[in-house]
């Protein structure tokens, strides 16, 4: 600014009217001139897995605005506040722009050649010294499916390690494992349309109003539904409910089993469906015998009448829908709880029909993609490691010898970290995730990372708490800068497009993977002829043909035309993409006998019970303005303005007992650590004895105090229900 300009501004001659001017834009209508765009690029939102269609407005090589795609079947033009401000993530200050290598303790800028060379050579060196399995890879749910597919092949077939998992294990692993056990395959069976068509909707541990707000419109549009919300915290979603179930933490499994008992013992179940499409009914029946209303009431804290009423409502519904998220998954009983939900849906025949489904509402924009293509907990295309036929099929598709296909999954995410602690994993490649904020009981992770010979972090942002620890940082393109596909919660594949180029020397993850493959010498073998994501997608279509997640009828062009297509969509498909699609409509499941399995499940108390030293139960969760560890949203000023810092919710009863008042700064302490100086919110939203802390904020990192307890089946962490105490922060710091 020149002195003259400054004077003009300060004196008031210039009131900034040029900057703050409006005009007509052919797409946006009358709006701020700064938002007017030269061209619009269709894409899909890169935050959660609702999968909203977006349009990115580009001018002068910058994304100046975004809007919901009015024609996208998921959101019809609407977006949540994160989506509405997503373009600011692209121009955020802390984007990773150049490859950095730690030299003499300092991250130093290097060229891409050196970066890829270092990665390959040093990974190979570690593998030569400690064995191929000493290399671990932790990826994400944020990449495009094409990248997940490429990464899976690169890791498992190129580097030859099976210790590869995604941060999706921190979030949806219980659902994945639960689906596999019940139905023989992963894959949420329902469609969003079910929310509009169901008679009874039961949401368990799912705060959609906060976390998937665009789905709420569908709940609202369903005028005849009875919405039941089970959550220990009176969330925004709970307040929308027709019937709210303020159950005790982690008592959901007992509630569902009690509902099952009522449904079975009072003869409300679908005998024909059970007979024809399931196995294990007798065992299930026996297993729920102990879940009398009285027993469940004792565990859940709900009245027997209420539990009975809910069971009858669900049992008598023509179409009943159960949605769940982290309240169920973040638990050592997560998989079993998912199975119990599936049991309930199966015995009442509430699956595969309009309005009737058990339905996990996924977290990340493409967690589904990594589950389909991932090569971590299963082989690509929902194939099983243990199935010889599946492995043969893949070997054939890839023209590889049969014995190159791995026969069992490697370590899951928490076990990779454990292996780093015990020095079995010596090198780690972390892609698009920020475990320093997101992994439970963070000190264990820090210990593990400190043990490594080499930590490579590939991310769109730097610095993040994780990139700061990296030995090698690879700067990656993010949403808005690359092409591919995302799959949302209802298995809808949508197109993601590049609107602008990545900043500095950042490259798409796809390019990075291919460059690594090139250096590794496996590009020809694994990625022959691949130059852009569409090449991967074409192969992916062939790999999924005939599978449950059949993409063979989906092309980029069709995605552009329809804005999103639900799989399975085989090339032989007879219906149009517009028709809502569900899995298992024919009652045929992905098990060997084609029948769904009814699996007995048993409730158990959560692992860390409160006791006099740590008398409160900690619950964690989100706020609508932020995404995960805030690498993306923390730099967006409007979101920061609306949600600037963490807070701790505590009931007035506990606050009085502790002599605490609203806005006091408090420390939250568990046996693992301490979260310091969180602002107290005294509220009736949480029950006495429970507190709630959002997990987004590194400054008040909830994972300082969460526990290392994992679901034995899915390996998902039990983030919730830690025993803690709260103290007023010492005034020295305030």
């Amino acid at each position, binding site marked *: 600014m020149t002195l003259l300009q400054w004077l003009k*501004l300060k*004196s*008031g*001659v210039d*009131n*900034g009217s040029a*900057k*703050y001017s409006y005009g*007509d834009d*052919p*797409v*946006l*209508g*009358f*709006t*701020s*001139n700064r*938002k007017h765009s030269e061209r619009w690029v269709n894409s899909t939102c890169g935050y959660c897995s609702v999968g909203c269609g977006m*349009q990115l407005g580009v001018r002068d090589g910058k994304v100046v605005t975004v809007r919901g795609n*009015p*024609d996208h079947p998921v959101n*019809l*033009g*609407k*977006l*949540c*506040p994160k989506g*509405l401000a997503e373009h600011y993530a692209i121009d955020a200050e802390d984007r990773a722009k150049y490859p950095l290598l730690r030299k003499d303790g300092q991250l130093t800028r290097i060229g891409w050649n050196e970066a890829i060379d270092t990665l390959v050579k040093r990974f190979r060196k570690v593998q030569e010294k400690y064995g191929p399995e000493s290399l671990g890879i932790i990826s994400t749910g944020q990449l495009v499916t094409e990248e997940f597919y490429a990464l899976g092949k690169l890791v498992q077939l190129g580097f030859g390690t099976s210790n590869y998992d995604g941060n999706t294990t921190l979030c949806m692993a219980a659902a994945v494992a639960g689906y596999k056990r019940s139905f023989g395959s992963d894959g949420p069976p329902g469609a969003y349309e079910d929310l*509009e068509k169901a008679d009874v909707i039961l949401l368990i541990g799912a705060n959609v*109003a906060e976390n998937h*707000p665009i789905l*709420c*419109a*569908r709940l*609202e*549009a*369903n005028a005849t539904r009875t919405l039941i919300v089970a959550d220990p915290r*009176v969330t*925004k979603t709970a*307040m929308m409910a027709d019937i709210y179930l*303020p159950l005790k933490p982690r008592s959901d499994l007992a509630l569902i089993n009690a509902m099952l008992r009522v449904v079975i013992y009072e003869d409300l179940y679908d005998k024909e469906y059970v007979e024809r499409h399931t196995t294990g009914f007798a065992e299930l029946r026996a297993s729920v015998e102990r879940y009398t209303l009285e027993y469940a009431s004792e565990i859940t804290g709900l009245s027997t009448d209420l539990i009975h009423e809910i069971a009858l409502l669900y049992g008598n519904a023509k179409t009943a829908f159960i949605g769940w998220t982290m309240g169920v998954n973040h638990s050592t009983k997560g998989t079993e709880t998912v199975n119990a939900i599936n049991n309930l849906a199966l015995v009442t025949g509430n699956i595969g029909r309009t309005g009737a489904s058990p339905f996990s509402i996924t977290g990340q924009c493409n967690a589904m993609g990594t589950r389909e293509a991932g090569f971590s907990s299963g082989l690509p295309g929902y194939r099983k490691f243990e199935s010889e036929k599946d492995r043969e099929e893949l070997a054939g598709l890839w023209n590889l010898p049969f014995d190159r296909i791995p026969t069992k999954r490697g370590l899951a995410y928490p076990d990779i970290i454990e292996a780093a602690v015990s020095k079995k994993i010596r090198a780690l490649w972390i892609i698009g995730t920020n475990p320093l904020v997101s992994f439970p009981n963070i000190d264990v992770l820090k210990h593990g990372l400190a043990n490594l010979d080499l930590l490579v972090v590939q991310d769109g942002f730097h610095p993040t708490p994780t990139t700061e620890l990296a030995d090698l940082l690879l700067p990656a393109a993010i949403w808005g800068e690359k092409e591919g596909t995302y799959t949302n919660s209802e298995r809808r594949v949508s197109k993601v497009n590049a609107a602008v180029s990545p900043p500095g020397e950042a490259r798409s993850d796809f390019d990075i993977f291919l460059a690594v493959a090139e250096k590794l010498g496996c590009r020809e073998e694994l990625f022959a002829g691949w130059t852009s994501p569409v090449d991967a997608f074409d192969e992916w279509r062939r790999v999924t043909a005939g599978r449950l997640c059949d993409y063979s009828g989906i092309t980029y062009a069709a995605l552009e035309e329809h804005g999103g297509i639900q799989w399975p969509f085989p090339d032989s498909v007879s219906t*149009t993409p*517009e028709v809502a699609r569900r899995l298992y409509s024919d009652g045929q499941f992905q098990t060997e006998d084609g029948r769904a399995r009814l699996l007995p499940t048993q409730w158990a108390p959560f692992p860390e019970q409160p006791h006099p030293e740590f008398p409160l139960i900690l619950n964690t969760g989100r706020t*609508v*303005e932020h995404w995960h560890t805030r690498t993306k949203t923390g730099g967006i*000023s*409007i*979101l*920061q*303005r*609306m949600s*600037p*810092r963490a807070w701790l919710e505590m*009931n007035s009863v506990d606050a009085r007992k502790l002599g605490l008042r*609203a*806005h006091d700064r408090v420390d939250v302490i568990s046996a693992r650590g301490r979260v310091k100086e969180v*602002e107290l919110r005294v*509220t*009736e*939203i949480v029950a006495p004895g429970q507190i709630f802390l959002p997990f987004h904020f590194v400054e008040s990192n909830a994972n300082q105090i969460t526990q290392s307890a994992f679901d034995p089946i899915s390996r998902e962490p039990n983030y919730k229900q830690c025993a803690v105490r709260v103290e007023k922060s010492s005034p020295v710091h305030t």
Partner: protein
Amino acid sequence: MELPLLERAQVGDDAFYLSTAAGTADGVQASFCGLASTIALPPPPGPGEQYRFHFDMTKCIGCKCCVVACNEQNGNPADILWRRVGEIEGGTYPDTLRHYLSMGCNHCLEPTCMTGCPVDAYSKDGATGIVRHSADICIGCQYCTWNCSYGVPQYNPERGVVGKCDMCYGRLTQGQHPACVSACPEGAIRIETVKTLQWREAYRVDANSPGMPSAEDSLSTTRITLPARTPRDIRKVDLDRLRPEHPHWPLVVMTVLTQLSVGAFTSIWLLELFGAHAHRGAALIALLTAMVALCASTLHLGRPIHAARALKMWRRSWLSREVLLFTLFAIAAAGYSAALWRQFPASPLLGGLTVLFGLCGVGASARLYLVVGRPTWNSPFTILEFYLTAVLLGSGCANILSGSSATGRWGIFASGVATVIVAAVKLWSLARSAVHERRSSYSLLHTVLLNQLQSRLLLLCAGVLISGIAHAGWATALGILLLCCGELMGRYLFFVSVVPTNMATDYLSVEAA
């Protein structure tokens, strides 16, 4: 059958559709949910009607899409929110409810932002009833930000002017929904037309809500649909937060110095009348003080170069009247000073005029702070405090000019005691007030601002004491210096300890002070 829908699309969200993607006639949209709603805009208001917002609290889930969409629409920085979402909460676990308020401007029937504006930057649009603000006319005095009991107008320091929600006037008049309406996934915000005459009665029920200031002040036109059942104790979630307001330093200086100057001229005039002393030098200093005060006041403006515009609305705005009266005071004071120098016989007359304008100016100055949106200011204490400052500092001047006469000292003592009493009674009444904002002012003063309050009283007492005991020239000078400092501190507290009425905000919100 298709026609009405087509028409709706054209008057409705039409401009939000990409022309290239128009081919969605295959029935997809019809099968979908509330997201697809293309609720038409109501027809333009007829005679006796205006546009208004309808906010449906039962639909709002507090997602704040409207807030982001508003800022995108208007290109505002993040610390300026023309649409805000606040929270109210009540009940006992688990029978508890939290509701949200999403509010832009209420486009009131009697907009207080407009009636207070000294430069006529606001207008109520004849055709739509929208309260519009002109950034070109605005001088950035921010008086509207005090006048609006909802805290709607917000000052943009980058521009030096205020801005606010204009219901997306430019969109509405082209048949496009406002940005907030378009963005809301729940359909909680709508535009309606309202018959203004009927609304003058109906607003009592339909414009009021928990978490909102009374619609009485300005007759808000926003219709709020409340849930059928709300907890009896539902209240703003931000009630316990204590945050001092902006001190407005130029105004601290300006008000105290004008009062000092008025007090000084009053002393000079009285001494001329009754003591037959022409204090020419003192008059010059007092005149200089007035000039400094007036210059300081322009520093408060976002656009000081247009300060003269503030005279315009003297028929309506107390701020204009203050500016006008102090301008006349300054002119009269200059004339009076000149007369004293030149020993014009008519100087007492000019002096009288100076004092008259000055005292009226102090009155106008105090009166302009009596706004409904600032309950702590909106009391006779404000008038008392402003005049007491003039009397106290005037007595201090008289004390110097009369060589520490008994009258001067007595004046300081009496006005000093009065100041302490007023301060004590004011604190007492704030602490016991039924009005939340007043009680919060008290809480601020006895916690966050306690040190400042104590030093204010200490300075006052020290000033009174020194002026009372010591007779030397330096002591009287020191006395008035201490008194001035005490008054400046007092005025600072006046500005920072006020708690505005406002709509509920969110729990952690950082409102621009």
